[in-house]
């Protein structure tokens, strides 16, 4: 319907342009000669300055960062752009700290995203049962997301405190005398961090799924019920498949949140060194870049590899959105 109107509009404007006598026609003719569409020149003042600013800070900076990653720049060596090589990248792959941080990054991204999606889906299904006060419940589940990583890190440091924190108090209360060292045990700290992050962001997945559930036409539910499908089958066969779009968008955004976990890890210790066992590429990069002594070029290389990692997720997502006509 709207497309038809648009076509009509284009035909109409084709005619009206010739009829118009005001100054606007001239620019429109010029732009159509370059075949950039009728509004190209008039559109420039709106998006070009912001594009240049954003392009400089995003794409310019990534290019600059890549250049730095090819040098040997560190606290003791000034950047020299005459000898460019991939030494920092080869160095990374033989650096055990880098390999451990990469592994932790993948574990964090995957486990955090999957758990957020599962918890979020569960919450969304519960909220969607036409319960009373559903807005209040939704507000409470989403509340942690309005908090800063720095704030939630303070709450969870206390939650996880070995001797007196609430979790271990409860664990001892049910008779277990040796509760885990949630933060200081390197083998479980990553899990503790993920749990805290799931607490913070599952509300986000809930909101996305809730919108997805509400978008499913009611007659799909009714048709399934007429067929005698059980509730489980209804969700498994009818509802979940229709939430594919919501799942994809939520996963991408959650992974981006996961990559931002730097703030959380930094705040656990108030330093560039996160608790042992929870170092991820994001924290390692900042430590190498801004700690002392610093390895600027090495940090830049880690930054580029993080960017490539993000690109692997984003590029297919943006292509998918583009094909669905969402862009």
């Amino acid at each position, binding site marked *: 319907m709207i497309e038809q*109107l648009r076509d009509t*509009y284009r035909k109409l*404007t084709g005619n009206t342009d010739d009829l*118009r006598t005001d100054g606007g026609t001239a620019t429109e003719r010029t732009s159509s000669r370059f075949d*950039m*569409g009728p*509004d190209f020149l008039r559109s420039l003042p*709106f998006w*070009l300055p912001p*594009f240049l*600013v*954003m*392009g400089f*800070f*995003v794409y*310019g900076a*990534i290019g600059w*960062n890549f250049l*730095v990653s090819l040098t040997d720049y560190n606290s003791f060596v000034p950047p020299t752009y005459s000898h460019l090589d991939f030494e920092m990248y080869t160095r990374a792959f033989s650096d055990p700290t880098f390999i451990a941080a990469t592994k932790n990054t993948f574990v964090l991204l995957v486990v955090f995203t999957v758990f957020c999606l599962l918890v979020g889906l569960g919450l969304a299904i519960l909220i969607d*049962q*036409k*319960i009373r006060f559903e*807005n209040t419940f939704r507000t409470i*589940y*989403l*509340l*942690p997301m*309005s*908090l*800063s990583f*720095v*704030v939630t*890190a*303070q709450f969870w*440091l*206390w*939650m996880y405190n070995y001797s*007196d924190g609430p979790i271990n108090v409860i664990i001892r209360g049910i008779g277990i005398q040796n509760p885990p060292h949630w933060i200081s045990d390197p083998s479980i700290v990553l899990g503790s961090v993920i749990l805290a992050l799931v607490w913070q962001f599952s*509300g*986000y997945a809930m909101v*996305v799924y809730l919108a997805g559930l509400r978008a499913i036409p009611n007659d799909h539910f009714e048709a399934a019920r007429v067929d005698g499908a059980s*509730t489980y089958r*209804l969700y498994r066969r009818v509802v979940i498949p229709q939430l594919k779009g919501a799942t994809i968008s939520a996963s991408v955004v959650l992974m*981006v949140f996961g*990559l931002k976990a*730097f*703030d959380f890890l930094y*705040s656990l210790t108030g330093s560039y060194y996160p608790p042992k066992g929870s170092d991820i*590429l*994001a924290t390692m*990069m*900042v430590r190498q*870049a*801004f700690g002392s002594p610093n390895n*600027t070029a090495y940090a830049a290389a*880690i*930054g580029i590899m993080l*960017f490539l990692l993000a690109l692997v*997720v984003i590029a297919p997502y943006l292509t998918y959105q583009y094909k669905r006509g969402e*862009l």
Partner: protein
Amino acid sequence: MATDSSDTSVFDVSNLSRMGYSRILLYATVVALVLLYLLPIETGLMTSLKSDALGSLPYFPPGPSGFTFVHWSDAFSQLASGLINSFILAIPATVLSAFIGSITAYGLTNLTWRYKAAFLTLFIAGIFIPYQAVLIPLSQFWAIYFPIHNLFGTYGQLIELIISHVAYGIPITLLLFRTYYKDIPTEMLEAAELDGASAFGIYRRIILPLSGPMFAVTLIYQFTQVWNDLLFALVIMGPGPASPVTIPLAQLGASLTNVGFGIRMAGAFIAAFPTLLVYIMFGDQFAEGVAT
């Protein structure tokens, strides 16, 4: 939204008593989850009000004799300048990025030209880049190549931080406005165009007045983002007299042991207060912002 629970649920089964039980179970689960979600916050609040953090169970309220505001006043005196800096940072950064997002979205949505989608994609990709890929150039740009703080003193660093937040905020604010502008009927804009309105006139007289609800969503989202940021503040200015509240908060009580948890928790609430207030007042707009 219907609050009547009798017969609209997809769980609806003919057996009435079974339905009653399943609804009780449903409410029990929802309430138990609420307690679970509020536990870290509730524990923090209780701890911040106790003179002795270890005197009673962490999630229990303080007894009549153990009640104190001393952690709150201590934390406030340590964070007060950070709070002021955060307001100086977050308010202009939020307003600017919302406004720029709005005009950019108009140029990329309601005007017709080729390759729009390509530029839009470049903008949108900017939402998802990990900031670690730009931190070194960003910090060097402000430290060496464009040191505004040399002109305006230490507080010039706040200007640098504002510009950075605006630049990296454009992609998301643009996307928020775009989802809204896509649904503005084309006929309305055509009518204005036929009346001889310029592109700017259309924006100012039609698009902008319609954007009220979306400005609310964007301002709330972006305010929360900027207020909560630690990373940019850390690498652009680091700890100092101009640093926003997240920096002193991350350091607060770091050197202390368990005894410091009272002040840590009070500090967390003080630093979170503006965003909590915004969230409680505008929860729906916040939800809309994050869901886009």
